[in-house]
């Protein structure tokens, strides 16, 4: 592995890590709301969140580019606030990845919240737990497998990101060149052995991550969480 490939690998892991943390922070309240809300038009929100599951990444990337580019509304806002433009920057990649991987984090969380149901919360309330207390002492521990699945899926999905990065990030080594782009570069340059090395690495990493998810969930499910 040459220095360039190593940089791409580290950048990818950093992107996936930061994105996962942000996603968990955003998705927990969002999934809780989706799981408990009685709002009539909740399905609209669910549909919007699920869009990245079906849209080609290039479409997401294209619209993000349009929004974040120098003439897009977000781009202008960012410039007005005095920041560097988001396009072709690592920050831009994080923003894009958050959208791209959102359903992979929201859905497992929402499912595990729904599965817990209202009853444990009612029991906790009759035992003197305030709503906030109920969330931390009952919901969080009971949803632990959901959080694990969400975190790993969000991380693994961001690892494999290509189309969105290509559209809004380009190919700047050390800034926006992630591993999937590096593989593409190698193939373009007919450097098959390097491409193979990176590809096999990514394959192995993804497999290990998914194995952890399913393995741990099986272990937890003994306690029927």
């Amino acid at each position, binding site marked *: 592995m040459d220095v360039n490939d190593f940089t791409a690998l580290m950048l990818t892991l950093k992107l996936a890590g930061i994105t996962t943390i942000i996603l968990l922070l955003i998705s927990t309240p969002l999934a809780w709301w989706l799981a408990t809300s009685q709002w009539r038009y909740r399905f609209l929100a669910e549909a919007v969140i699920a869009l990245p599951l079906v849209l080609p990444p290039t479409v997401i990337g294209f619209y993000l580019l349009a929004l974040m580019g120098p003439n897009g509304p977000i781009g202008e806002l960012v410039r007005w606030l005095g920041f560097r433009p988001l396009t072709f920057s690592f920050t831009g990649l994080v923003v894009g990845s958050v959208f791209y991987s959102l359903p992979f984090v929201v859905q497992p969380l929402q499912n595990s919240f729904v599965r817990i149901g209202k009853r444990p919360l009612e029991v*906790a*309330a009759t035992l003197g737990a305030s709503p906030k207390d109920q969330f931390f002492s009952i919901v969080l521990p*009971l949803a632990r497998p959901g959080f694990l699945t969400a975190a790993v899926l969000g991380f693994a999905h961001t690892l494999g990101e290509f189309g969105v990065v290509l559209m809004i990030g380009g190919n700047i080594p050390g800034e926006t060149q992630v591993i999937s782009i590096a593989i593409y570069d190698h193939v373009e340059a007919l450097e098959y052995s390097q491409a193979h090395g990176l590809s096999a690495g990514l394959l192995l990493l993804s497999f290990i991550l998914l194995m952890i998810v399913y393995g741990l969930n099986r272990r937890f499910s003994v306690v029927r969480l």
Partner: protein
Amino acid sequence: MTIEVHLTLQRENFTLQTSLSLPASGVTALYGPSGCGKTTLLRAIAGLEPAAQGIVKTNQATWQDKQHFTPVHKRAIGYVFQEASLFEHLTVYDNIAYGMKRRQPHNRVESEFSLDLLGIRHLLDRHPEQLSGGEQQRVAIARALATQPDMLLLDEPLAALDNARKQEILPYLDKLQQKLSIPVLYVSHDPHEVCRLSQYLVIMDEGTVVEQGATSSLMSAPSLSGSSLFTVSQPEENQISHLSRDKYIIKARVDGFDAESSLNSLSFSGGTLLIPGEEITQPSVCVEIAASNIHLTTQPGQVSSMLNTLPCSLIDLQPCSPGYLTVRLKLGDEILNTRISRKAASTMALRNGQRLFAQFSAEVASS
């Protein structure tokens, strides 16, 4: 001293409208067919139905009135749901500690006492999934009691259990009824449970209170005769039947046991009952009398295979089917219906208000 419950709850196709003053001690049963609103009422008293409007007042506090609504977690209640609903991620000990940590009961010894009362001390280290259904429900009751609530609310705690598990828990509920000083509200659709465990009875139907009063007097109240509320063998709970009831349930005090003839002697408002069988160990039990097995006679002295002969008075006679009459009898405070042939009635020259003797056999109701 009473618990005031005046609540209204409007749902799409259901309205709960109750105005109750319940005794502030002893076990009060909320009884009625499924869908009558008894569980909803219990939930509303606990504060689990925020849409319910009205007044909930106990001796200690006003939980709800026009201006204010105390949220569930600030009401000093113990609540036991139909399913045990133990926290699966916590051990039995931590389940019980969960409520105690938050409610901070003033007397730890009393909280510990609930462990012994429900016989669960040996289960403390287990996880809920390692317990039987009956053990889970006992832990749930102990968990509620350990917080030392001002009131214990039980929502059909036996309904989700099979008969063997019920028999396992009922003795603990008997003890609860004897040892607890706080009021207990007990939701049930099982007349045996109601008779065995409660002193006060609220009968509900379609979201309103049909009747309330002492359990022993209500269970055979005239207003209920002809309804299926306390028939045991009606398959359809909601079906109102105008036939005479098949079985009567009477609450009786156990007075003594004659070991030689293996005979229990019990007393109720109508006199002394003799029931053969093993010695009954509870202080009071529910006794079943089959309506079809009540024989009438004008003379007390006749030798009969029926163990019990008690004086009663004939309230009235009504035709029921060709050749038959329904006889309403008053036996102490109890009112019983039985069926006799028109021919027998004329031979015996029966008339309203007549003094008669009812011969019957009784057995301990198995709930």
